[in-house]
């Protein structure tokens, strides 16, 4: 690695991001504004997550990147290669061997430990944004803990569809205070937000960083008579037979054929004894 500072960003930028991360950890679920930089990849490709990872990585880390559970899709491969180039850190595809995991839209199936940091790529950090487009208003709502709008939205879901129809980016309340968008993870992953690992969220275009410290209470919103249901496809993985993992539907031909397989490729490979 020559011509780049360690982890690509200059030191002053890293300090600014690090200060935002620490305030985020101190105020669980609160979105801390930060001066997001242009990264050598387009917005929407994980620039927020990349900046958080760059501020967190040390030369001793083993870094894993997943895109919807998979280590070998374009986004994951590009980001992994980027950090190989600018930090020289070891990389891995095994969840249990990684110390820092950057993720796009999944939480690994293998339970995380205290020694791990999970970095989420976040497109829209504001859970209320599609209900109230004005930042001035949503900021006031968070300040006053006025989250009635979201409950009305979930209620209308039930009135129209008979169930809460939000399947991903399912809103949560953190430490009984801030409403938080867990990024577009499937709601199946929501129970895993209560974790021994440090969870950091970075939204590059929207310039927000937030965090969930270890063992923090994270409650998925629901109603007494319509409790939260972390549903998934009701069948086992066609490759490894797992019944407890989130499944992707894969189209296999043009006559309606399909199969359901684990979205977490490392989990699936490990169960089949083929771990990389």
């Amino acid at each position, binding site marked *: 690695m020559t011509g780049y*500072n*360690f*982890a690509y960003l200059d*030191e*002053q930028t*890293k*300090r*600014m991001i*690090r*200060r*935002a*991360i*620490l*305030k*985020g*950890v*101190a*105020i*669980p679920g*609160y979105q*801390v*504004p930060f001066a997001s930089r242009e990264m050598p990849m387009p917005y929407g490709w994980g620039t927020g997550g990349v900046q958080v990872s760059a*501020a*967190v*990585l*040390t*030369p001793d880390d083993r870094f894993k990147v997943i895109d919807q559970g998979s280590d070998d899709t374009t986004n994951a491969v590009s980001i992994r290669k980027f950090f190989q180039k600018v930090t020289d850190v070891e990389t891995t595809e095994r969840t249990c061997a990684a110390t820092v995991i950057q993720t796009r839209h999944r939480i690994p199936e293998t339970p995380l430990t205290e020694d791990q940091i999970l970095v989420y790529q976040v497109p829209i950090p504001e859970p209320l944004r599609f209900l109230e487009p004005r930042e001035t208003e949503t*900021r*006031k709502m*968070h*300040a*006053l803990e006025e989250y009635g709008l979201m409950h009305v939205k979930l209620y209308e879901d039930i009135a129209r569809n008979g169930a809460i129809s939000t399947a991903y980016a399912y809103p949560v309340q953190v*430490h009984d*205070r*801030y409403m938080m968008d867990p990024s577009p993870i499937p709601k199946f992953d929501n129970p895993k937000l209560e974790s*021994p690992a*440090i969870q950091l969220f970075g939204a590059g275009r929207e310039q927000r960083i937030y*965090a*969930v*410290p*270890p*063992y*923090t*209470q994270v409650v998925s919103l629901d109603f007494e008579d319509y409790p939260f249901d972390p549903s998934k496809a009701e069948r086992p993985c066609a490759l490894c037979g797992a019944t407890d993992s989130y499944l992707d539907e894969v189209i296999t031909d043009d006559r309606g054929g399909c199969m359901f397989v684990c979205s977490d490729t490392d989990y699936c490979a490990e169960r089949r004894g083929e771990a990389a």
Partner: protein
Amino acid sequence: MTGLAHNTEKLAAGFTDAPIDAAYAFRAALHAMARPGRIETLSGVTPPAPVSPAAGALILTLCDPDTALFLAPGHDTDTVRRWVLFHTGARLTSASEADFALGTWAALQPLDPYRSGTPDYPDRSVTLIVECDELRADRHRLTGPGIETEAMLRLPETRAFTANRQLFPRGFDCYFTAGSSLAALPRSTRIEEVA
């Protein structure tokens, strides 16, 4: 500032390899803040007395020309000012404008002037770096985010931290430093004095 220019006393060094040293130091600071009460080790810098190595590393990792630093009496010496200004370029200010404040618990008093954030922006608040003689895992029981069941950390007092918790999500956050040891107490932690 003019007085400083004529001071030819040798300046203590900062980080040896800033990007790498700061990365390790930040990781220790992150682990400490994410797990209140847990004692981390932070070394590699020898700042001028009375600044501890852990506090020195925190300042080099987090302060720069974008931040305002308050040096409390006892830490507000010519040598410390020169060291901080040379290595970080941080603006030295009063308690009421500070992003970071450094000193012993007694010297950092009173707490009223420090910024505790606003309801809209609770993050716009001070981080106190409290120099201690030692860090001990007793006397105060901590519960809250980052703590599985409970943690123990001896705090300089009880009342100020209880009052700070009641401001949540506003409030200040604390690092406690002693030698190369570091622990943290974010505003989210509930504390209880144990006899």
